[in-house]
């Protein structure tokens, strides 16, 4: 592991400028795969902002980091497959367990005994797995529009095969490995249009497409082929094992993972559900002030719990 201290002023930005630059950055390496993390601020408790699907990377939290870092110690990392992390060439490297192990490795590397986990979409799978299996490391979990399978029916139009060649290339038929190879950017634009169903999302859409272009169709295909929960029973069992406080936030207009999924997650974990009326799949980007205040309130409600 190497740690690089970033100069905060006058730093040449290889990307969009940021409202807040990391106070510390580093990498963890597991089985030859390097994952890059960043730390902002230093006030306890620590919040670990997990990656989501590798179609995006840690900049997904850009509207959270500057605010949260004024109050807490904030850790982010790029999920394997995008950002400054490696893009391993095998599907097994993208198993859910690998992301969970990366999260633990980042906690260890940064000397973080316990943290509040914040997940978005697929990242919520890794958050609940960590909370269920390593409760001593997890103070609480905030889950934004969780992408947890088997808990509620997905919209029918999402039922296309990922692996087979399809006749159609309309709508969710674009969610297909062959289509990604042929028209990756078009897929990204389609997916972003579904993720940001709110009006006035041009900036968030542009960001998502840009981050998607930082990885490749091949890497993204592998993320779909890694091991994921296999059954409703398995998914429910994990959720029922979660003992820490849980706050679920889910939009009523989420076109990617319906609101019923978030409601089920809240119920199975005994957590609280906050419904964002009219909200799409990425509330941290389209409702950042609300999400930030909810998270702050959630963290404050944990009080001195176990600390």
């Amino acid at each position, binding site marked *: 592991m190497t740690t690089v201290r970033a100069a905060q002023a006058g730093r040449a930005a290889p990307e969009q400028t940021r409202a807040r630059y990391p106070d510390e950055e580093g990498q963890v390496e597991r089985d030859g795969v390097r994952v890059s993390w960043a730390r902002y601020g230093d006030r306890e408790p620590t919040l670990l902002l997990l990656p989501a699907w590798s179609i995006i990377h840690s900049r997904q939290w850009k509207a959270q980091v500057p605010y949260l870092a004024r109050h807490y110690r904030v850790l982010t990392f790029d999920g394997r497959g995008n950002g400054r992390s490696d893009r391993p060439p095998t599907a097994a490297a993208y198993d859910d367990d690998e992301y969970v192990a990366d999260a633990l490795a980042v906690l260890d590397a940064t000397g973080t005994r316990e943290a509040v986990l914040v997940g978005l979409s697929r990242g919520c799978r890794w958050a609940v797995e960590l909370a269920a299996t390593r409760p001593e490391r997890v103070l609480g979990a905030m889950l934004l529009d969780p992408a947890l399978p088997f808990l509620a029916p997905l919209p029918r139009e999402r039922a296309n095969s990922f692996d087979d060649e399809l006749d159609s290339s309309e709508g969710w038929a674009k969610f297909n490995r062959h289509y990604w190879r042929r028209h990756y950017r078009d897929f990204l634009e389609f997916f972003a249009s579904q993720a940001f169903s709110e*009006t*006035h999302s*041009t900036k968030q859409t542009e960001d998502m497409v840009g981050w998607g272009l930082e990885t490749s169709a091949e890497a993204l295909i592998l993320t779909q082929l890694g091991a994921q929960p296999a059954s409703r029973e398995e998914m429910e069992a994990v959720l029922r094992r979660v003992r820490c406080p849980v706050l679920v936030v889910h939009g009523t207009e989420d076109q990617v993972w319906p609101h019923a999924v978030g409601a089920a997650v809240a119920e199975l974990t005994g957590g609280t559900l906050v419904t964002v009326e009219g909200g799409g799949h990425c509330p941290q980007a389209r409702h950042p002030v609300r999400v930030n205040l909810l998270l702050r309130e959630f963290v404050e409600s944990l009080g001195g719990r176990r600390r």
Partner: protein
Amino acid sequence: MRAREPDGEGYVDRDGVKLHYEVFGDGEPTLLLMPTWTIVHARFWKAQVPYLARRFRVVTYDGPGNGRSDRPLDPAPYHYEAQGRSALAVLDATGTERAVPVSLSMASQWALWLMAHRPERVLGSVFIGPSLAIAPGHTGRQQPFEEPYTSTEGWAKYNRYYWQDHYQDFLEFFFSQCFTEPHSTKPIEDAVGWGLETSPAVLLAENDAPWVDQATLRDWCAASRCPVLVIHGTKDAISPLRRAKRLAEATGGALTVLEGAGHIPLARDPVKVNLLIREFVESLPATEPA
């Protein structure tokens, strides 16, 4: 729904035209956020009011022709002197002895009128995207206004008859020019909506009121004694940066140029504009507690 509701509101009557004002906060000094072209109303300050009202007293009002003010179809209330006197009437009605006027676009003329005619009421003056005859405008905008339009493209829409025939299309075009920055869908939607709260007849009446000529502007600027801040975007497609430069020079004021900003940075770069206003206001000598 607003982030900040007013603490007080009321109407002033100016020669039979009712103008609606609102007051937010009670700090010192008072900022007078002026109306501008009556194609929009006081809500265009929505990204300023909640922040500024936490520190200062903020007075906004709708000029004649939009918002909760009357919509006269006679040019007189739209004359720059009438607009200057309306600002004064709002100061009087709100018991405001001295204020910092903050003006956008063509309201720069009314702020200058106030500075020239009632200097004792003005602590300092902030101009944003000033549009006034102090220097030439964009050449591309010079299209015949009074003649039936022969083209419907671009600035040809800025035409008496086109407004009457295709008002919403004109609004959409005009605000696309105001907001040249990417990702401006929300401010454009807001502004078109405010434009639809008035009518082509009102805009035509307003259009018949004269602008201040260059020689008069120069005299007013030369007489200016208060601190001045001029803010202008490099991508302002409504009023060119040279006008802001000339205004800052003529008033001995400071110029802050916003790289890449359009005509209405207060909506597209609100944090930057709010901090600039705050910094300017806090630098004014008379704002220190008595």
